[in-house]
């Protein structure tokens, strides 16, 4: 069985720009096919399935992880490609970026005006000003997706560097959890969803939850670390540290996670001695709200993996955080009873 580390590398390097997640979806299918039944790719492009050996009539649980990443789409151009953004781009990371274009993965670079000709011009450009150079004539088709290239590497200790960790670290944890649950089943009816379009308002998750109709949902995602050098005068203690353990989201962009699940997770983490941290920034995270609001409401909890530079093609994650998040979610499932949701 491939290790968490090997899976994370493959998942990080796979391409899956929101709305065109084919490559990463195929990889996830390959990594999980032995343990899932009723595997489907739905209308949105979500990859869903039911854990084999689940207990029919047991509590119906959905485990989700987003598989897409931000990128660009070709919009035209002659010598250089014009593009449009896919997802929320941090333009600082677009400067002089390396990219891969379309399914054929043509190499390209984002043009950057040399400092000799642009000294003192410090405003971040608009996304519509991005130009991509393939070295040749524009051979790309309008509508093709463009992915940023990360530079995966194992740094010191348990920290790895790579792209698309916001979703892919969560995918790697969910793959590991599926393996763990297959090896030691729980008396639950477990469904999994690797969701599409998380980076475009979390719309894949809505459809996945509508289709799978869970009684409770746990969502894995990334959480931005803020254990970084601060501006002068900013004495705030960091909320989310790399290596600090799974992140429980106390607030998200479009809502507050289910408080019963939140309290349950917090007390269980403490009882089991598993590291956790609380993130109450409201900066991102829309899938939770989307699933919460499906059907007549689904109690939903987000567990996130700490990621430094989450919107960069070279983010950092700690493998220990991934392992601890997987362990905490497994413990949460093992002790899960319907009564938690009745309180």
């Amino acid at each position: 069985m491939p290790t968490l580390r090997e899976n994370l590398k493959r998942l990080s390097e796979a391409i899956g720009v929101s709305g065109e997640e084919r490559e990463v979806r195929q990889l996830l299918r390959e990594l999980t096919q032995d343990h899932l039944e009723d595997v489907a790719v739905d209308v949105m492009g979500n990859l869903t399935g039911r854990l084999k050996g689940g207990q029919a009539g047991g509590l119906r649980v959905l485990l989700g992880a987003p598989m897409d990443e931000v990128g660009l789409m070709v919009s035209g151009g002659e010598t250089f490609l014009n593009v449009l953004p896919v997802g929320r781009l941090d333009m600082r990371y677009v400067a002089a970026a390396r990219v891969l274009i379309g399914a054929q993965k043509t190499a390209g670079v984002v043009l950057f005006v040399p400092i000799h000709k642009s000294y003192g011009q410090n405003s971040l450009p608009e996304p519509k000003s991005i130009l991509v150079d393939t070295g040749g004539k524009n051979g790309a088709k309008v509508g093709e997706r463009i992915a940023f290239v990360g530079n995966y590497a194992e740094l010191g200790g348990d920290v790895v560097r790579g792209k698309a960790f916001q979703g892919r670290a969560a995918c790697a944890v969910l793959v590991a959890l599926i393996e763990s649950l297959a090896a030691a089943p729980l008396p639950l009816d477990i469904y999994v969803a690797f969701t599409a379009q998380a980076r475009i308002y979390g719309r894949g998750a809505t459809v996945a939850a509508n289709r799978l109709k869970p009684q409770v949902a746990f969502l894995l995602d990334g959480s931005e670390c803020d254990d970084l050098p601060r501006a002068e005068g900013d004495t705030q203690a960091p909320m989310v540290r790399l290596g600090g353990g799974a992140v429980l989201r106390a607030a998200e962009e479009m809502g507050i996670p289910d408080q019963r699940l939140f309290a349950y997770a917090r007390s269980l983490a403490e009882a089991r001695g598993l590291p956790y941290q609380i993130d109450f920034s409201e900066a991102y995270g829309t899938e939770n709200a989307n699933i919460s609001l499906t059907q007549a409401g689904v109690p939903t909890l987000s567990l996130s993996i700490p990621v430094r530079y989450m919107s960069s093609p070279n983010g950092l994650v700690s493998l220990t955080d991934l392992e601890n998040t997987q362990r905490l979610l497994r413990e949460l499932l093992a002790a899960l009873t319907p009564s938690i949701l009745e309180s």
Partner: protein
Amino acid sequence: MDIKAHLKALCEAHAPSGYESAVREVILAAWQPLTDAQEVSRMGSLVAYKHGGGAPPRRKIMLCAHMDEIGMIVSHFEGAFLRVRSLGGIDSRAIVGKPVLVHTREGALSGVVGARPLSLLSEAEQERYPALNELYVDLGLSAEEVGRRVRVGDIVTLDLPLIALQERRVAGKALDNRACVAVVTVCLEALQRLKHTWDVLAVASVQEEVGLHGARAEAHRLNPDLAIALDVTFAPQPGVPSPAFELGGGAPLALGANFHPALFEALKKTAERLELPAPIEPTPMASGTDAWAIQISRDGIPTALLGIPTRNMHTSVETVDLRDIERCGRLVAEFIASLDEDFLAQISWDQPEPSKKEDA
């Protein structure tokens, strides 16, 4: 020689100004079989000698391409993070999120150039690129580990491979000026098949990016009769005003006060004879290249400058066309082969005035 593989080895060596050893090794390995003698100068520049076929004492032409790249240097620690200063014109706008190597006494550590996420920035900060003093290097290590392994003064380089684009174009870091080192390699290779009477002094100079220091010292020490400096120049792209030179359009030959006009003419004639494109790069004053230092060495050295058109200069996606490198190398080799004992006399500044008057 596989020019792309050679260029890849050159560009992927980590060698900022003052710390050129790694790339010097790569160049020495390439030039050794093509030249008669090699030495490393006191400054650290590599000089390779290819003797001419003439009777001694022979005239000498110096080819000079700088081998250093822009980089950074660790200035202080902030917890687990390294603050850095520029070593030769790094563009802080183009390095955010880029992978780097920190070169420590125990070897290189991989890291990334970090910046605070948007959620930690003021509205004004969200609208602009961070300055270098707002960036830092993150090695993913604890503060203790960083303090134990890294020292103030350690060198930081971008860690990105050379990649192939379409149309025989390549993109990567340090093509400024390893592209021109490759030009010298192509030239030396071509000279294996050409007869030349002059001695050729191939110089891979140090510390160009911090003030043309290597070229200045070697020009003085070697005291050549002629010099050709080689450095990258600008290719057209939005935001780069004319004059700029198309990738694949040939190596521009510079014209201006920094260059000897007769040497310029002689190179231009060689290009015309070979039917090689050699557009003129108007450079009225300072060229900002090794040519600037070489020209005023000793009694003055007739100097020329050839360039390789480059996009995205001083970023990690500098882009050049391999055909320009090949053609420029061939042009220089053919020019060297054309040099004879009388050449210096032919490049005198002022020809005698025409004696015949048109009007009485």
